[in-house]
């Protein structure tokens, strides 16, 4: 029983990160129907930004309190990653908006691999650790051990998701996003600055991934391949939830978190995780191609 609760906490922690990244996939898809395969690597870049900024700020000279460093690190990662995403959109995706959709997807795949290999070539393959912003405190409650870091990850993620949901549903920017995603051709006639809204969507998606990236880096190591490793899982989360649907991405993230943590519990080896996750995806796509919360698009004849 205790291990079960323990595992549930682990799954929530991991699921939170998946959900945060999945949001970026789903928002971009929602607005320009592009599978932004580079998003996982944007997340990877964000953890490196967090690593460098965090390490620099934690130096003894500054003597800043941990919480301040944490907040500054997150903000720096968010800003840098948002900038990167907007630049990618501007220079790689925008020229292809009129081109066949496949071209843009391939470009996204190319951009992702470029980021990965570029990081590999410049920084190297060795795993890195983010500095400890907070002393790790472990609580024990009814035989279940959990750390303050775990609580921070789960709580911060939940707050960010609630915030995003509110932004999309309640604010003008959110309304404009929904307008663009509904009809790219009519939205500008209604005074919606389409290009700017698309840029904002990329920026928000990337900054949320950066929050996820910093949180992730507080528990796991950072390396150039994590964009693919973690990114794919987040991507599956988005598809499982129904790509283009924000709440779907959140649900999908937690589902995948549970799949990853509980697969080794049920099956003999942890190496089956990929198999389970991708089979789940395949089966889902065959029987419910539009995910849990997604809706089928009608074809115009």
């Amino acid at each position: 029983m205790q291990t079960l609760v323990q595992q549930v906490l682990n799954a929530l922690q991991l699921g939170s990160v998946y959900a945060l990244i999945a949001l970026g996939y789903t928002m971009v898809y929602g607005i320009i129907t592009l599978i932004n395969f580079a998003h996982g690597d944007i997340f990877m870049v964000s953890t490196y930004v967090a690593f460098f900024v965090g390490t620099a700020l934690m130096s003894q000279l500054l003597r800043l309190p941990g919480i301040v460093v944490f907040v500054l690190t997150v903000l720096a990662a968010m800003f840098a990653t948002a900038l990167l995403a907007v630049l990618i959109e501007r220079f790689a995706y925008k020229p292809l908006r009129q081109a066949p959709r496949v071209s843009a997807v391939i470009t996204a795949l190319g951009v992702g691999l470029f980021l990965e290999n570029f990081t590999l070539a410049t920084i190297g393959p060795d795993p890195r650790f983010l500095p400890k912003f907070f002393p790790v405190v472990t609580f024990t409650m009814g035989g279940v051990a959990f750390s303050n870091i775990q609580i921070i990850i789960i709580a911060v993620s939940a707050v960010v998701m609630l915030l995003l949901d509110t932004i999309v549903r309640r604010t003008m920017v959110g309304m404009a996003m929904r307008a663009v995603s509904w009809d790219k051709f009519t939205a500008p006639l209604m005074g919606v600055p389409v290009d700017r809204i698309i840029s904002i969507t990329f920026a928000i998606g990337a900054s949320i991934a950066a929050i996820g990236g910093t949180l992730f880096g507080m528990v796991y190591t950072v390396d150039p391949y994590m964009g693919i490793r973690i990114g794919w899982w987040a991507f599956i989360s988005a598809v499982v939830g129904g790509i283009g649907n924000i709440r779907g991405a959140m649900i999908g993230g937690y589902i995948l978190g549970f799949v990853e943590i509980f697969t080794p519990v049920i099956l003999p080896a942890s190496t089956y995780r990929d198999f389970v996750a991708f089979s789940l995806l395949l089966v889902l796509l065959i029987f419910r191609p539009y995910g849990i919360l997604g809706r089928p698009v009608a074809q115009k004849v």
Partner: protein
Amino acid sequence: MKRPSLSFLSRVLAPLRAAYESLPPPVRRWTTPMLLAVFFVIALFSPSFINLYWQQVLIYVGINIILTASLNLVNGYMGEFSVGHAGFMAVGAYVASILTVWVFPRWGLGEYVPYLFPLALLIGGLAAGLTGLVIAFPSFRTRGDYLAIVTLAWNMIVKSVLENIDAIGGPRGFMGMQKLTSVAWVYVWVIITIYLLRNLVYSNFGRGTLSIREDEIASSLVSVDTRKVKITVFVVAAFFAGIAGGLFAHIIQFINPRSFSILKSTDVLVMVYLGGIGSLGGSILGATVYTVLLELLRPLQVWRWVVGPLLLVLLMIFRPYGIMGMREWRFLIPPEERVETVAALMERIRRKREAVAAPAPAGGSSG
């Protein structure tokens, strides 16, 4: 769609073309087969005058041509977006390797393995072709992005399954293959692949495939059985990927699941889109240029892996249909399909009909 001009290439090749045109027709007819035979002899004796390194490069070029041409069938001719070609390659590689390393020797055929190699490749190809159905069936219901995800998942599943089967080495990989793949063998398989694919492309199935790319609904409304076409295309493409996998396994003599990751699939994608979609000549060109380019960039070490993705992005932005997009080299077009043959046939039909009846109103040559 815009068609890139080939003025540079055609200008370079113009004298050759003129020489060829001046040959008498019976000679012209046999030129291509003769040239192919001459190249085969060269390939056969190449080990005696080309060093091992360049032999290996040539072999990779050949394997990549097979991979590229077969993926082009799916991505270029049918307009679907498959990103999991390496998955089929893996199936072919493992099946063929298990045959030559375990099965044949166990049957007491150890010394005949070099002669049984084509059989091993064929069985590997067939096994891969069978798994092509895994993609074909979902493709009835989903298209575009979702099918891309299906193929991606397929690639990941194959890799993960291979990693979990300990009997064939799991993540450590599988070895013990003899070095059976030679320049001559690869050459023969390339010719077979291109010849068979060309025949397919210029058949009922090929036209059906193209019509799915152009407009799937219109295609089914002019009687194309799109399911049959999709099954055919996915199985055939997977079959040739499997053959390529078998050849690959018997040159590097060591395969592991990581050799067939999504990165490998992306390499094939680059070659398809570099050479040009919907073109077998483009596939030959794309595979050759990319393979040789990566070899020349070897001194750059890690940095050369930045080149492929960057090239892919630039291609998509500036030349999305590739060098030869939807064009074909003349010698790859069956004679009866060439423009002048069709025009001549048309002329004959017109004369015949004019002797009998009138055409549709406002028709004739008014266009």
